[in-house]
């Protein structure tokens, strides 16, 4: 199926454009004219998608955005199928509530990437902002499934409140990585900020560099968890190659957060 290509006519620079209509579910059965007529909001004004993008192709659940759209929000939010590729940056809430399919962001993603997503794959070649894979305010749980892979750096509270799923970060993370997570897996290849895993209930955070841990994490042992081997083998399928040292080596295991039920674990190469 040839993709629908969205060529950026005029990228918003100030007032944000909200374009949850850029979603494979909506493009799949629509003609080019119908896609152009999909609604978007520039601040409090209603517009057509075609006012901002030149649409090429139709009736496809493959979408390519040909350019950087850092002020375009909600791209692929709630999508269940297909693939969205953005050849550049994307604005807030990309892939939030996502339930299937794939988003590839070749540039950077803004805050709230993949928040409360349930399934699917989000891959970012650049950096991602705060709260990727986390929860919106008030929700008990964040990401409920799916995979987020960020090749660059990330902001605060990435993977916070996570209930299930996998977040892989090749770069560095700021504070509260995996804070209050209920379960799930976070794998950080770069360096962590402060308070990693603060308030975590269960779940696993693997940090490939030494981490300054909270006093409420307790050291257990040095060992080679078999599960990591399964995880790393899987990561290779996503193009993430752990070093042999990381794949086969020993890890220091800490459990916490003892302020909560304390069944989470943080693994750091020994």
């Amino acid at each position: 199926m040839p993709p629908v290509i969205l060529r950026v006519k005029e990228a918003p620079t100030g007032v944000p454009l909200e374009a949850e209509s850029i979603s494979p579910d909506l493009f799949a059965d629509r003609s080019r004219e119908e896609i152009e007529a999909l609604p978007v909001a520039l601040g409090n004004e209603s517009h057509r998608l075609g006012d901002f993008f030149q649409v090429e192709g139709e009736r496809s659940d493959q979408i390519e955005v040909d350019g950087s759209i850092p002020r375009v929000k909600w791209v692929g939010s709630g999508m269940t199928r297909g693939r969205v590729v953005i050849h550049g940056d994307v604005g807030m809430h990309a892939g939030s509530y996502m339930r299937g399919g794939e988003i590839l962001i070749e540039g950077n993603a803004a805050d709230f990437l993949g928040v409360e997503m349930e399934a699917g794959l989000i891959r970012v070649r650049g950096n991602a902002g705060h709260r990727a894979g986390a929860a919106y305010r008030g929700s008990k749980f964040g990401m409920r499934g799916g995979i987020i892979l960020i090749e660059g750096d990330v902001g605060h509270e990435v993977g916070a409140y996570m209930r299930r799923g996998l977040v892989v970060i090749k770069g560095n993370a700021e504070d509260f990585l995996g804070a209050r997570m209920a379960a799930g897996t976070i794998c950080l290849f770069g360096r962590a900020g402060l308070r990693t895993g603060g308030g975590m209930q269960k779940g696993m955070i693997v940090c490939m560099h030494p981490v300054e841990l909270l006093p409420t994490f307790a050291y257990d042992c040095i060992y080679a968890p078999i599960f990591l081997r399964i995880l790393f083998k899987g990561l290779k399928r996503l193009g993430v190659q752990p070093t042999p040292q990381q794949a086969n080596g020993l890890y220091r295991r800490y459990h916490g957060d003892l302020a909560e039920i304390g069944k989470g674990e943080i693994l750091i190469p020994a």
Partner: protein
Amino acid sequence: MEINGVPIDQTYAEAFTMYASRVLITAINLRWAMEAARSMAGFGTSVIGCGCEVGIEGTEPQETPDDRPGVRVLLFAPSKKAVQEHLIKRIGQSVMTSPTSACYNDLEAEDRLSVGGKLRFFGDGFQISKRLEPPIIGNGSRPRRFWRIPVMDGEFVVEDRFGVHKGVAGGNFLLLGKELPGALEAAERAIEAMRKVKGVIMPFPGGIVRSGSKVGSRYKFLNASTNTAFCPSLRRQAQSELPEGVGAVLEIVIDGLTPEAVAEAMRVGVRAACGPGVVKISAGNYGGKLGKHQFHLHQLLSS
């Protein structure tokens, strides 16, 4: 029909349906994977006395979920529930106990039995569930859940659910030998060839059974007894199937994930067995009354 001068009876092996599962055991090296597998397959010769039939299917040096050497074990039992019970018992007692081991499902099937999901309680509340999704475990497959159970050497990883589907048990053929050493040699040749076939096990010791059985006995409390028709010593006392000159009979029983795998195993097994010292090849059946599968020797050997 004759192969290498050995006549093949115009008969068929009668086999029946049993539910099958396939387990992949890995460990730090092949030796320890094999130890666990052997232990798991132990005392799993016949459903009659063991409740299930278990055997080692083969080894897997690389392509395992954790990239460690592995051994595949097949387990057959009369019902899904029985498969589940025996998997839980055998993985729990023989694999979980074995140093460095991990245990994965290796059968994609609609029906899936909770096995790790039951063994997890051994973790006494410290067990950890991990679920991995399609792009990580290969696109198109279902998510897989693993249990990580803390044990004294680290952690025992066992998959939550194991696939089960209908398999075939009781595929067989009989080697009628002039005398025992020659018959045993022929049977060994057969087993060696058959072990290369995927998806089958020969559950008896070394793959070979000498105490073939028939249905029923003169004792009310026993529903199977020695296969009088093939015991050389009873050739004149009971109704016998043995021609003159047969001094020893050995049987090879095959359980397989599919009828095709059983047929293939029988085909390569019979071919390898046929040689000096073998008087005839036959097969065991119950007149077509017991099993749904019939493997006609002539048919499968001519293909």
